[in-house]
């Protein structure tokens, strides 16, 4: 019996070695997948001579189900609203194929390839940072124009090991470090705070990114961080940490987490006797929808990319149309996705105007170049991109007063 197993094993190993050797000799057979140059989604025919293109096919990638579905569905609503409105104007039509990645990195890559197979020319997505970062290197290799409305990790647009920029990848949201820096400066300059504490989730990349940036910036500008506490995403009880923060008695406490946490932290911090002014970032969006007792976060400031309180007509229009379409107020994620769609489609229009054929590499490159040169007035403010493809835009500060998130000002 034993001898036979050994023979079989040896046979199998020899086979493997032979195969590896054989493949070492033959170089991989070129690019994989269909390489039809016209697979870019023109149905009504066109050519480079500038005849009118009537349809461009783009992809929409995000978690419509699973743990991140709250963000995903908001993003889909925002992006589709812009596209439907755009299509309703007549002329160029945008066809959308959407794919659900469920918040899973491996599935996101599969769905990205599926969108490429479907022949899309550009992609809006993905929603959370992890799956987006899994997709970006593939998309970069393909030269596929991509824009996310919500992926805030610094590594989404830049290879953090080499510093190389993923030139095809854009986003319409703030990046993690930016928000941490802004809130440290806000605490120091506007609130004249001398001491700060931080409460963050040690297993959420977003939370860590903001915390680090806040602490680093605070050290530079002379805001003393006297206490740092942390918790795990799934834990509901922060009383012990908050009691420690109350004992340290800082001027401000920075809490860079999501609304599912702030809804729990608010009541507990009140009970623990934390009197410091609470500061948050864009994860706080939706806190007032999730909190049972809004008075416990009274007076908190948080940074956001979007505010309802605007005099500008295009923002008022956006809110009205969104409410009419979906029956709820748009949140920040929906607004940023709306702008992401606007940036992408404007870039596509530019490529069409240049007489290029959708789906070709030239078209994609032109779209990317146009996106890099973006300068638009979106519903989340005026957006231009820096050399890392991160948006340069105004940060809005909201303050919770009488159970409502009031626009405090820009900063």
């Amino acid at each position, binding site marked *: 019996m034993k001898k036979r197993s050994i*023979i079989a094993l040896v046979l199998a190993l020899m086979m493997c070695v032979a195969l590896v050797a054989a493949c070492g000799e033959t170089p991989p057979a070129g690019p*994989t997948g269909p390489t039809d140059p016209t697979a870019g989604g023109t149905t009504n025919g066109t050519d480079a001579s500038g005849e009118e293109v009537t349809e461009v096919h783009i992809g929409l990638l995000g978690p419509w189900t699973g743990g991140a579905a709250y963000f995903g569905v908001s993003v889909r609503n925002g992006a589709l609203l812009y596209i439907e409105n755009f299509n309703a104007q007549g002329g160029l039509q945008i066809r959308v194929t959407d794919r*659900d990645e469920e918040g*899973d990195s491996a599935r996101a890559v599969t769905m990205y*390839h599926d969108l490429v197979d479907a022949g899309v020319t550009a992609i809006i997505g993905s929603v959370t940072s992890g799956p987006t970062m899994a997709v970006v*290197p593939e998309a970069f290799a393909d030269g596929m124009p991509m824009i996310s409305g919500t992926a805030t990790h610094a*590594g989404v647009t830049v290879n953090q090991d*080499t510093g190389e920029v993923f030139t095809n990848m854009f986003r319409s949201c703030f990046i993690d470090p930016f928000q941490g820096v802004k809130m440290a400066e806000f605490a120091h300059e506007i609130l004249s705070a001398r001491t700060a504490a931080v409460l963050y989730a040690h297993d959420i990349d977003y939370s*860590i990114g903001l915390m680090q940036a806040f602490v680093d910036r605070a050290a530079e500008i002379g805001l003393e961080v006297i206490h740092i506490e942390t918790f795990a995403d799934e834990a509901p009880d922060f009383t012990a940490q908050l009691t420690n923060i109350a004992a340290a008695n800082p001027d401000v406490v920075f809490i860079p987490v999501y609304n599912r946490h702030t809804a729990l932290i608010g009541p507990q911090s009140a009970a623990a006797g934390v009197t410091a002014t609470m500061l948050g970032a864009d994860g706080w969006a939706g806190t007032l929808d999730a909190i049972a007792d809004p008075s416990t976060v009274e007076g908190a400031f948080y940074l956001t990319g979007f505010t309802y309180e605007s005099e500008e007509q295009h923002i008022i229009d956006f809110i009205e149309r969104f409410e009419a379409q979906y029956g709820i107020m748009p949140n920040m994620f929906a607004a940023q996705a709306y702008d992401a769609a606007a940036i992408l489609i404007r870039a596509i229009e530019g490529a069409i105007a240049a007489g290029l054929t959708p789906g070709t590499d030239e078209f994609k490159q032109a779209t990317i170049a146009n996106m890099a040169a973006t300068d638009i007035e979106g519903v989340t403010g005026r957006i231009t991109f820096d050399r890392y493809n991160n948006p340069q835009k105004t940060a809005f500060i909201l303050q919770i007063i009488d159970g409502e998130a009031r626009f405090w000002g820009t900063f």
Partner: protein
Amino acid sequence: MNRLGIKTPARYAINATLIIAFIYWGYVITQGGMLTRAQNNIIIQVGFFIILAVSLNLPAGYLGQLPLGHAGFMAVGAYIGALFWRSGILSGYGSVVGGLIAAGIVSAIFGIIIGVPALRLRGDYLAIITLGFGEMIRVLIMNLPSITGGAQGLQQIPRHSNFLVVYICVIVCCLVIHMIMKSRHGRAILAIRDNEIATESMGINTTYYKVMAFAVSAFFAGVAGALYAGTLGILVPSDFNFMMSINILMIVVLGGLGSMMGSIIGAIVLTSLPLFMQGLNQYRLIIYALLLILVMIFKPSGLMGTYDFSMGHVLEKVGGWTMRSKKEGGASDDSE
């Protein structure tokens, strides 16, 4: 010993030829641009899920113990493989193979460290303690950011997992586990499942076999983890949470506890389903959960039962070479 109609060397030759043909065919198909990119990508993922399922099937199906921490071993392998490849110690195929082996060995060491104490328990307690160990591994990875990148993740992992690498690992994994199960060791493992106390009183060192099964299982889970890292190029600890263990368990259970063929088919079906169920996606997990319950109620042995595919049997049936095999049929590959 020659209980089958076909001589043993001939059977090995046939199997080896078929395997080589399969690999070659797969290689041609995946490299030749005949498939869409999503299909190519799914084929790679199916590969490492086959390894995960087949390796979980060893303790869960054959040994009859239910570990709920398979994702933990996968995580160990993924991070070891990723760190090995990122460090660039070796180059070319040496690096690929070295990373996979390192991932497997470290994972197997974890399997032994965890297995020795955990396997003193059985049934529900074993399930829970392995769940605890699996979560511990994740907490450790999360809290060692200087090595693993912590929750921010590990990026820029060389993407070594192509069709050949993944499917050679699949075949080695299936072959090794198949050979273990066909050997004296395999029969000891099956005996432990059927009646542990009786097995022990027969003079079989049950602890040794349980730990061995656990270590082999962990080894291949680690290899699969490294392949996962080499496919995605990025790792975050939350990829390896309890849900991942459950996903792997779901493949094994639906395929049939104790059937390698079942695990393979289960991995193919459950991994590729999301691609074809786009419209039904919000119901997918509900359907899986219902399936899990219904299968347990109506066919606890899983869809494939304990049936295992055997090329020899197929050939015998096709060729009518079943001259002297009737008497010993029960002891052959088809253990149903």
